């Protein structure tokens, strides 16, 4: 332990009092933070990473307490401080940025007031000066037009801008340490790139220490110098990112790295099992039950964090195992789907407008808000047995498009043909038994008042009344990898991954031909996410299903799709075979999207294309190309000419740069060379 550390955490153990007795959430965690250092704390949910940060900040819930260990900030012990002393330290010396920018700002006060309050609390300045400073800070976090934003209310800002405001509040008193708890998890990938960029710049600029808590290995690899990997309440590996992520010594770190879906050409190598609950941690190494290298030695005592190579790992077998491989060596099996199969779903110029004028008076009076064009003329087709990945940021209309295919939302215009017939001519019952939906939020997609058995039973009976319901339900549960006995459980008794499997089972109950999966993995942890993707893939192959897979996550799309459609502001901007699209993206938006995905391999020094600004208001899209406001390659004609989706057979792109076939080829070559 060095003496000049900014923050020093030593043997931190945090306990929570629950109905089932005392539960140790974090055990014996130690780390130091030097000025200017960027430390990433990474782990799955339940690993104790957020509890660690909250323990340091003294922000534990009522039932939690630091049982032992010390937290020293500049020589002062934080764990012994009273609440009012801590209040002085928090904000002025150590500041925190929370995950959800939507709920972290008070909706009834202007952004400026909230920044000014923080400054006045910690600094002895006049209100006018504080306001002056607030505007400076908003400018510093690169909010356009800070003079007017300072008087805006939080609901008037986008998610990305709110996160910037939160950062502005956090840095308003020049803290020495910034603790960021999943600061970009709720944001889109292009906005995430902007925010991460800003954070790194601010921290470097001011010589602050940064503790970044995240589940995303890519974010750590791109923004941090050092990393502590947490598993089940303990740090299992610690060291420089360039070491830990390249030559991991703990099997968990390696497993996590290997199971993360990557843009690169490798298949994820899944980590089996789940993180044990804090109350049910085994004796010995917490990871032993999931570890392929585990021996009996692992089950006797907690392995301490010991030097391994140039960093530290908590594993008794470090010496025998040596450095582990972080990148799976399984080559991606490229899609064997032949393009010649017949088309199952075909949409032609589909549109959906949501009108904000809901009262009769609004509709009769002229003026008012124009409708939101959620889906604005989309032609998309899905072939039999194909997986089409639909990717886009929030507000791009991808979910609406998925819902239109199932008629969960009525179309405003255009035609969808299913199996050669217009959707309006397909009988309701046939449609419902041939297309099914897998929902995003496992907590909302299952009725909390019904057991898993009941949920599936209704679906089975709906499809086929004569069948032996109970044996069918058990069969379905087995097919999605659940214990048939799960049918007696209520959804709240299941984990997120299990709930999502029930959602898949429910969709399969009617024996559909097409599954529309709307971000089915976005609420899950990396290893669980991988397991679910594998399940979907297996089921798809076994049953010969077609799938529309909607996601904002390009690595997931890369993993599961045969073909990818990229959506931006209600329109498709590029459709191409997966490999083609990822190797040589043609639309500037696709290119930017790809470059914005953080790669967990620190050796990859990707050239980031950081898009300026945010997705425009869908009520008032730009005149020409929808992307013109953010496009790094925008030309004058893009301002007024609206590019159509044109292309050769399978691959098409909606960009003026590519309207001419030769130019498209020119652009493609240098990209391909770079690979």
């Amino acid at each position, binding site marked *: 332990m060095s003496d000049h550390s900014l923050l020093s955490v030593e043997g931190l153990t945090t306990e929570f009092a629950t109905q089932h007795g005392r539960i140790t959430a974090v055990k014996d965690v130690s780390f130091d933070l030097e000025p200017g250092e960027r430390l990433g704390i990474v782990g799955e949910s339940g690993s104790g990473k957020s509890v660690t940060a909250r323990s340091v900040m003294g922000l534990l819930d009522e039932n939690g307490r630091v049982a032992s260990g010390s937290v020293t900030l500049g020589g002062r012990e934080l764990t012994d401080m009273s609440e009012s002393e801590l209040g002085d330290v928090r904000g002025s010396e150590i500041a925190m940025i929370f995950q959800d920018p939507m709920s972290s700002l008070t909706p009834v006060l202007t952004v400026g007031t909230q920044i000014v309050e923080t400054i006045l609390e910690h600094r002895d300045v006049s209100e006018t000066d504080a306001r002056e400073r607030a505007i400076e800070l908003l400018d510093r976090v690169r909010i356009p037009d800070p003079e007017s934003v300072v008087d805006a209310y939080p609901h008037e800002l986008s998610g990305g801008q709110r996160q910037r405001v939160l950062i502005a509040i956090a840095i308003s008193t020049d803290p020495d340490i910034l603790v960021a708890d999943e600061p970009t998890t709720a944001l889109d990938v292009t906005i995430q790139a902007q925010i991460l960029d800003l954070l790194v710049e601010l921290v470097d600029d001011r010589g602050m220490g940064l503790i970044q808590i995240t589940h995303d290995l890519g974010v750590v690899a791109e923004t941090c110098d050092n990393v502590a990997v947490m598993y089940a309440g303990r740090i299992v590996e610690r060291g420089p990112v360039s070491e830990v992520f390249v030559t991991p010594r703990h099997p968990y770190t390696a497993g996590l790295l290997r199971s993360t879906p990557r843009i690169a050409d490798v298949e994820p190598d899944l980590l089996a099992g789940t993180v044990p609950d804090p109350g049910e941690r085994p004796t010995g190494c917490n990871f032993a039950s999931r570890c392929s290298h585990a021996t009996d030695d692992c089950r006797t005592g907690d392995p301490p964090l010991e030097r391994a190579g140039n960093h530290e790992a908590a594993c008794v077998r470090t010496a025998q195992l040596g450095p582990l491989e972080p990148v799976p060596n399984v080559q991606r099996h490229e899609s064997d789907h032949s393009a010649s199969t017949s088309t199952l779903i075909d949409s032609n110029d589909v549109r959906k407008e949501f009108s904000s004028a809901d009262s009769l008076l609004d509709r009769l009076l002229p003026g008012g808000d124009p409708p939101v064009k959620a889906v604005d003329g989309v032609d998309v087709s899905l072939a039999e047995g194909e997986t089409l990945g639909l990717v886009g940021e929030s507000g791009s209309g991808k979910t609406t498009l998925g819902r239109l295919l*199932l008629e969960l939302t009525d179309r405003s215009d255009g035609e969808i043909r299913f199996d050669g017939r217009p959707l309006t001519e397909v009988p309701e019952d046939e449609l*419902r038994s041939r297309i099914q939906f897998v929902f995003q939020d496992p907590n909302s997609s299952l009725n909390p*008042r019904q057991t898993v058995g009941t949920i599936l*039973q209704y679906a089975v009976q709906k499809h086929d009344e004569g069948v032996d*319901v109970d*044996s069918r339900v058990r069969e379905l549960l087995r097919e999605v990898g659940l214990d048939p006995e799960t049918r007696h459980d209520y959804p709240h008794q299941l984990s997120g991954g299990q709930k999502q499997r029930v959602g898949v089972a429910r969709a399969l*109950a009617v024996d559909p031909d097409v599954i529309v999966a709307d971000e089915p993995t976005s609420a899950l942890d990396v290893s669980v996410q991988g397991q679910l993707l594998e399940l979907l893939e297996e089921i798809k192959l076994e049953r010969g299903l077609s799938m529309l897979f909607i996601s904002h996550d390009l690595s997931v799309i890369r993993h599961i799709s045969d073909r990818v459609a990229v959506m931006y502001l209600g329109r498709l901007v590029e459709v191409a075979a997966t490999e083609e699209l990822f190797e040589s993206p043609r639309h500037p938006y696709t290119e930017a999207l790809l470059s914005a995905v953080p790669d967990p391999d620190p050796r990859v020094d990707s050239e980031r294309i950081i898009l300026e600004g945010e997705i425009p208001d869908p009520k008032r899209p730009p005149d020409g190309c929808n992307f013109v406001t953010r496009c790094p390659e925008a030309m004058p004609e893009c301002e007024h000419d609206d590019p159509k989706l044109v292309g050769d057979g399978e691959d098409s792109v909606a960009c003026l740069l590519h309207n001419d076939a030769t130019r498209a080829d020119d652009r493609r070559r240098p990209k391909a060379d770079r690979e």
Partner: protein
Amino acid sequence: MNGESPSNSASDTSESVIDGTSDTSESVIDRSSSARVRQLRRTWRGFRANSLASAGLVVVSVVVVVGVFSYVDEALFDSALIKAVYYSPFEPRFVPLEGPSPAHPFGTDTLGRDVLARTIYGAKVSIQVAVTAVVVAATIGSALGVVAGYAGGVVETIVMRVVDVMLGFPALVLAIGLVAALGFSLTNVIIALGIVYVPQFARIARSTALSVSSEEYVDAARALGYSTPHIVFREVLPNCISPLLVQASLLMAFAIIAEASLSFLGLGVQPPTPTWGQMVSDGSGYLTSAPWISLFPGGAIFVTVLGFNLVGDGLRDALDPRESTERRF
């Protein structure tokens, strides 16, 4: 009663699941019922932790037991039971206007009837009116509200505007009008109060159904092509039950007061059947000379209403998901 439907549907399910697996039926019963029992137990724990609610439950239980006793006694035994242990509530056999004494703890009324015996018999009408009227109102109101909340559009506009018009009248005035139109009888009081309380349930059911309808499992049900009645009554309604149950227990208290008011005005149950409200009315002329005639039935109203209110508050806390989910961290 509506409040029972979640447990009903759950037991239907477990039974039909059991049918399929005769070999493992025993363990099936164990597991499915244990999951349900666990949930009930958690609500019960939350409820019991609130000592006021437990007190309310004791009061309500006592009143219900007394009410059931007097109902059974009158209907089946012609008051033989109460005569065997005490006095008849109907026969004016004693000295009128006698104050509380060991022989007549609540005293006697103007005609020389025992006030305690009549108070015991009065519980019958109060409980009968409160429970039946609230069940009627809850059934109609919840169904209307849930349908309006789920369907939206024209259906919602029509249902909710009618409900708003009904809410425009003060509840008691509307009840008096209805009873006056229908005629003075116990059944008509129940019908009138049942109608008067429909809007209360409809409003709550609609707003809850509105938020439940946006849950993904309702979309899932639509995607699976379930019929609208299935979606409304199996998917949406069971998830609206908690606030309705709380409202029902609070309205029981109001119904008891309303019945007492109607009886006080002479609009409710006709003599000689004793009801608390009517007894208060009878004694109102003797408040200075013989206050016990009004005081004891009035006290019974007060205690019962308080009991139902405490139970309602306790239920609200115990059923609140934010309170009942076990916090792990």
